[in-house]
């Protein structure tokens, strides 16, 4: 048997070899088709780049558009001996640069003498016009046009993002196989987030080349060719005038302004200060400018509205008030004596009810409210009791959209921080903690961290009396399109809308007779707002915070303003917020002195 098996294997080897030899005979000798195909085979693939989608503001004003860019390419195999002095003259480079460019080109991994290779990137229109007429003197060289981005205004840089060549790491990660080295791809901002919608579909043309590489026409009458499909235009909710105004107001200051339309969640303005001109990151200057901007100590690439995590300060008292009302530990009529022995306060008030406490931003009141909230006396053990209370409290606070990224349509959104029992266990190394250890969260200090977009979303939630749409920049993909599905869902908080009405009243009181009355009150519009002054390390001034929405009924705009190191919330932030509201609702300010006050920027004198 085993001898026979050996024979079987020998026969199998010979049989396989015979099959191969016969198959080879068929394709090599009997069938001349392959030889013909080889002559004309050289199919080369050319890519047609589509137009990238344009970006508009809410009134149809163009923000981002395409401009042609010209790459100088060369097929080294087709290059003839040329006069290098003449070449340097035409292209205005030195001989050393010329040698350097060839060295760099040949060192690239994908370089092959038969393939078109980029010799020089992104010639400007003028350069293109200059060299165009002389190109025929240098066989092998040709111009390849593609499109880059331009911006109609120098605003909104961080929200828009930019377009640049795909990085090596991104290329390796790209599982779709869509990109090739040298392709442009949206980086950060809308350009990055909506890359798939903006980029469109590339067209492909198959050309026949003979064995020498000369093009002989299209392959199979262009049966496999595809036309490029332009990317989809994006219609944002941004109000370009409001955005520009916001950037003016924030000039020379560090901080952020976020404006949202409460009824839809559309972002009206997203201002990050300091910022940069997006036109700096286009064309040939991209490389040097990017290095400059990214090394700037003021961090203009740091998109504060969604990346800066701040302590919220007193604006957080509104969330505290509603949580406590919902849990039934206070009523709107609950009065607390302003006992300043544990926690300090400001202004002259002594025994306020809830509305008064919000209007005057009374610290001891909310210290007391949080104690009622966290220590309900469910157990006698104060440690366990606080833990139970905090868990309950977390549930409500999270429902406002705090403590996790909201999921807006921009990359790199930060989550902020809402401390949980597990968080304190870690912070205290598993030693016991109770209310008296953590009470600073009562007034928005302590461990709480929120990002400005969350503050604006919070204002929008109050404006809506209890729900929000996730804030988003793009309100329509393509003309008459829809936003992404996740932006069409209402998110309800755990708080009854009746309790929101109390918050609305109190916020109206803040502006009419409380901490916000001097700079946030408008003549014909009922503004609801709340100030915040966030402690900072002396000698730096406190951070100035304000959230607001207006008008009180059927609100059209919700705002959050955060100005770093600018002192009281009632000054810088309240002024800026009210100016933004005026600008959006009326079109201009009726209080030039407030505008001047903000532009002068001396908030702490």
């Amino acid at each position, binding site marked *: *048997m*085993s001898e026979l*098996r*050996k024979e079987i*294997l*020998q026969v199998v*080897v*010979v049989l*396989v*070899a015979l*099959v*191969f*030899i016969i*198959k*080879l*005979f068929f*394709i*090599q*000798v009997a*069938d001349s*088709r*392959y*030889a013909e*195909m*080889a*002559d004309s*085979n*050289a*199919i080369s*693939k050319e890519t047609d780049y589509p137009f990238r989608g344009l970006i508009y503001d809410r009134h149809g004003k163009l923000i981002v558009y395409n401009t042609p860019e010209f790459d100088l390419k060369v097929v*080294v*195999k087709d290059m003839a001996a040329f006069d290098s002095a003449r070449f340097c003259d035409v292209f205005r480079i030195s001989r050393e640069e010329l040698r350097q460019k060839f060295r760099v080109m040949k060192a690239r991994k994908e370089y*092959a*003498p*038969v*393939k078109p290779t980029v010799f020089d990137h992104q010639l400007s229109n003028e350069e293109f016009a200059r060299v165009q007429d002389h190109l025929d003197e240098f066989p092998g060289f040709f111009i390849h046009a593609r499109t880059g981005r331009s911006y109609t205004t120098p605003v909104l840089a961080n929200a828009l993002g930019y377009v640049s060549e795909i990085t090596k790491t991104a290329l*390796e990660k790209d599982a779709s196989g869509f990109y090739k080295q040298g392709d442009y791809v949206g980086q950060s901002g809308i350009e990055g987030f909506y890359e798939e919608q903006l980029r469109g579909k590339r067209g492909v043309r*198959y050309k026949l*080349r003979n*064995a020498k*590489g000369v093009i002989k026409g299209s392959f199979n009458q262009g049966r*496999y060719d595809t036309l490029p499909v332009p990317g989809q235009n994006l219609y944002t909710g941004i109000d370009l005038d409001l955005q520009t105004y916001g950037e003016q107001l924030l000039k020379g200051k560090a901080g952020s302004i976020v404006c949202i339309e409460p009824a839809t969640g559309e972002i009206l303005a997203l201002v990050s200060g300091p910022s940069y001109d997006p036109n700096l990151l286009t064309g040939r200057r991209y490389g040097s400018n990017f290095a400059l901007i990214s090394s700037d100590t003021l961090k203009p690439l740091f998109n504060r509205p969604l990346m800066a995590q701040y302590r919220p300060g007193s604006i957080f008292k509104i969330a505290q008030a509603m949580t406590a009302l919902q849990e039934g530990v206070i009523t709107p009529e609950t009065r607390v004596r302003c006992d300043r022995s544990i926690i300090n306060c400001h202004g002259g008030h002594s025994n306020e009810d809830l509305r008064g406490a919000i209007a005057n931003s009374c610290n001891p009141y909310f210290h007391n409210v949080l104690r009622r909230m966290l220590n309900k006396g469910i157990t006698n053990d104060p440690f366990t009791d606080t833990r139970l209370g905090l868990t309950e409290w977390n549930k409500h606070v999270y429902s406002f959209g705090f403590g996790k990224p909201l999921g807006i349509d921009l990359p790199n959104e930060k989550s902020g921080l809402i401390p949980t029992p597990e968080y304190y266990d870690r912070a205290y190394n598993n030693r016991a903690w109770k209310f008296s250890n953590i009470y600073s969260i009562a007034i928005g200090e302590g461990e709480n961290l929120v990002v400005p977009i969350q503050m604006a979303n919070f204002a929008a939630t109050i404006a809506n009396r209890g729900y929000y749409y996730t804030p988003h920049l793009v309100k329509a993909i393509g003309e008459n399109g829809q936003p992404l599905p996740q932006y069409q869902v209402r998110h309800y908080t755990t708080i009854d809308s009746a309790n929101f009405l109390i918050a609305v009243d109190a916020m109206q009181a803040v502006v009419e007779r409380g901490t916000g009355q001097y700079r946030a009150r408008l003549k014909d519009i009922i503004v609801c707002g709340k100030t915040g002054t966030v402690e900072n390390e002396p000698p730096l001034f406190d951070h100035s915070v304000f959230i607001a929405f207006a008008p009180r009924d059927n609100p059209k705009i919700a705002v959050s303003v955060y100005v770093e190191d600018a002192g009281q919330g009632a000054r810088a932030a309240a002024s800026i917020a009210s100016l933004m509201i005026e600008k959006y609702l009326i079109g201009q300010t009726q209080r030039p002195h407030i505008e001047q006050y903000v532009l002068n920027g001396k908030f702490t004198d």
Partner: protein
Amino acid sequence: MKREEKISANLDWATILLYLAMVLAGWLNIYAAVYDESTVQSIFTFSVNSGRQLLFIAAAGLIVMSIVIIDVRFYETFAYVMYALLMILLLLVPFIGKEVGGNKAWIGIGSFGGQPSEIAKFATALAMAKFIGSVGFRMDSLRNQAVLFALIGLPMGLILLQKDTGTALVFTSLVLVLFREGMSPFLLIVGICAAIIFILTLLVPNQLYLHLGVGAVLILFIALGKKKIKRIMLLISGALLISVVIESVDYVITDVLKPHQQNRVKALINPDADPLGYGWNVTQSKIAIGSGGFSGKGFLNGTQTKFDFVPEQSTDFIFCTIGEEHGWIGSVLVIGLFVALLLRIMFIAERQKTRFARSYGYGVFAIVFFHFVINIGMTIGLFPVIGIPLPFFSYGGSSLWGFTILLFILLKLDSHRSQMLQRL
């Protein structure tokens, strides 16, 4: 000195000559594959593949010398240890390896790198041979069979973790060793039947016809054979099983195979459906080989392999260069070299006096045979594109060294075959 002379005299020089012929032919073709007339570079230039391959060949020479010098007992004594070490290395690859061409099978120490999976082949063959050669081994014991399948399955699994399906599949060829050593051919037949049914399912658009065919064959068998209840039941259940397999093919194609693997199977069945998409490799490879004609375009005169039409031209698709530049004659010659080598390996295996050495010989046979069949089969469109190299021809250090070790351990064992007998 005298002892060394004796060793070299006992080595099988016919095999060594075949080996040298293949390595030399491979080297010349690697040069041809990357040759570019506009920037003529010498075959010895280290910046092109052919120059580096020469270094690999020199290193292979050192490996051969070490294998010949090491005491012959080493290979049997340390078979399990080497196996274990390589399995650990394979296990580590996903963590310390770097990704080359979509597979994470490459580990590097400084600028030196290699694929442990190539080296694992000989270790697995050696470990299997040692187990088969051990005292009291019986092939018909289920337990022994289980151990052998585990020995094969372990490296396969570990290599699959590196997403290197091609190399993992190579290990299935070791089942041939079990076949030679007396295992019932049932499994082999079932495997081949399954493959045939699988391909039939892809070729026949309507699966109903296949089911009807199975039914017809079933009735034929029942009518012709003895009409015993037990036999009929067995046949019916067998036919049902085949029908289930047919039904599951669709599932396997769409859900188990990854998209690029699906495309390779599709390209095999009908490469003309999308000649510029998934059929690209096969189409280009066939054009290159087919354009060679009877006697080829001549050394360095190929056009297809140079314009980057054929991918992986110096590694997995090296046969294209041979077919294009040396035509049908050259291809037949290369296939002839492989047939001669395979038959010679089998001859050497059969003349071993121990079960260990014979099994190892068949392990070498099985691995080289599998590579030969799959690699050439894929370049001429008979098998789906599975990225494994053509032994001794393809560019690459790991592959060349792996096959060199595999072959020369056999030659070393062979040169001591009379001593081995004395030891027993």
